């Protein structure tokens, strides 16, 4: 069945602006997260989802109701539809069953089509939520620092993709040109152990301490959810599809200015390349300095000057 895609015509200026926000742009918006619950969940997964939502706020929407019949590894169309509706390009889906306890599925989309999808098992004994750490957290919407530790992130292709995935997931604002040095508030760290393949995610608050010279000393305080995850299943985009998503628009690239340099004194020097000129065909009639009469004019003015001098 072919579904007719009706073109949405906005009726208000506000609606028009909202649609414009959702259009593809040269410099993109931050990726939004969609938090969805599955049919059967337990309390720990509920808290985890809430924590992810808070970590990513305001770039995050939470769906409160349970959703039946969503099996992401079989069919992602329903989730893609929800993401299209809320203009999100990431989703987090939690379930809990006997076969797959404490299940968390994270995925990212490109053009409302699922690109990469990772299914994790959360270790519920070592899980600590945001509420378990009683201290100041961070301002919502702040861009986090990201630290990855573990050789696996570079050796195996699956974990390479996972690293790129997490950068994309937690990055926040894209293309940030400047940062307030006091604005570095929190850091999210990922440690991947070779032997147990355990991925530990910790979130710390950065504190600047005096160090005697300009660069401050850093101290870290744990604030955020403490997660220990093991990968269960993955569904990665094919290399072709992945390459397509990496394409950057040429308009953003800095344009090189050729033939203009600044010398040591600070003057701007330009270089002009001329084609070969035939000196016999040059236009000289319009150049005053080449006129024969000009020398006679000079004598006349000198004469005038002498007269003025003599009267004084």
């Amino acid at each position: 069945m072919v579904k007719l895609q009706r073109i949405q015509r906005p009726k208000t200026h506000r609606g028009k602006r909202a649609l414009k926000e959702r259009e593809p742009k040269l410099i993109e918006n931050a990726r939004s997260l969609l938090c969805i619950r599955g049919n059967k969940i337990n309390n720990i997964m509920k808290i985890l989802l809430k924590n992810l939502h808070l970590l990513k706020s305001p770039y995050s929407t939470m769906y409160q109701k349970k959703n039946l019949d969503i099996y992401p590894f079989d069919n992602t169309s329903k989730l893609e539809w929800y993401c299209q509706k809320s203009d999100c390009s990431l989703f987090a889906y939690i379930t809990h069953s006997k076969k797959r306890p404490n299940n968390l599925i994270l995925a990212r989309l490109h053009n409302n089509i699922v690109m990469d999808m990772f299914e994790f098992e959360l270790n519920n004994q070592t899980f600590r939520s945001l509420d378990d750490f009683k201290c100041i957290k961070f301002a919502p919407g702040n861009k986090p620092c990201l630290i990855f530790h573990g050789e696996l992130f570079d050796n195996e292709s699956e974990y390479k993709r996972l690293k790129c995935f997490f950068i994309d997931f937690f990055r926040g604002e894209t293309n940030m040109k400047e940062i307030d040095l006091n604005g570095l508030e929190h850091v999210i760290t990922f440690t991947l152990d070779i032997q147990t393949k355990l991925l530990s995610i910790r979130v710390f608050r950065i504190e600047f301490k005096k160090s005697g010279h300009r660069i401050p000393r850093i101290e870290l305080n744990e604030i955020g959810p403490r997660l220990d995850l093991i990968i269960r299943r993955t569904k990665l985009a094919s290399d072709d599809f992945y390459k397509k998503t990496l394409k950057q628009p040429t308009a953003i690239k800095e344009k090189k200015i050729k033939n203009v340099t600044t010398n040591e004194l600070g003057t701007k020097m330009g270089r002009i390349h001329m084609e070969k000129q035939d000196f016999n065909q040059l236009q000289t009639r319009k150049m005053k300095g080449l006129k024969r009469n000009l020398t006679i004019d000079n004598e006349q003015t000198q004469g005038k000057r002498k007269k003025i001098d003599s009267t004084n």
Partner: protein
Amino acid sequence: MNSNDLVKNILKHDIDEQDRILKSTEVIKPCPVDIDLGNLLVWDSNIIDQQAYKANRDEYIKNTMRDNMQLFVNALWQVPIERHDNTIVAKLPESKTIVPREKPVPKPKPLTKWQKFAQSKGIVKQKKSKFVWDETKKEWGRRFGYKKANDDSKPWLIEVPTNADPNEDQFAKRLSAKKERVAKNEFQRLKNIAHANKVNVRNDGALINKKSSANDMKKALATAKYSDASMGQFSERATVDEERQTRGFSKRRKYESNLGSLKNEKNKQLKIFDQMNSSTTK
């Protein structure tokens, strides 16, 4: 006294040493750490110390991450700094890691007829004021919109020009002229849109050079598969590759068995009747 002094000196030296270590911003790592300032990203490729990791995982993670963060801050403080009012701001360089985009690269929109003309002549849009002085009302009114200034759309008097027919309805003439202008503008706007979508239109609205694209063919194929007596139940579904959305293509109608339970069937039929009877729309 001398030995006392000696002891004091040694202790002081010790305390100073400790202080220095606590305050130090130096970090020594076996393998240099990869820092991407544009993304605020640190990639530490050092091997995890299994002993320390197994002994106390959280402590180990906290310490290594503190070191990594210190290296990052050391690098960040080297970057050129600007001052915006009261805040000190560091200019971040371009990010090294290329991250996939959320949506495809936007295609540049083709220029409209007016935009091309304005570009060639060098006409730049002048910013107009929102409010204009209304001479008759002696107050400021909007340039356009609700209660606009110099509004002559509803005139109470129109002078009949000398060369016009005295029986002609001037008010109706004004109205029809306005309608024509609006229609012309709409026509030109639609022409611009058609050109933007590479659809060539003749003056009377007919299409020129319409060639079917691959997209049209796919749609036609899907419609054809759906247009048989069984609504595409038994034919192969239109093939979809991973880059196109699967919405609308995966549903197949499920039929109930003829020999199922009578109770279920009765309940279903009654439910349909209830829905038809109810005043609320679903």
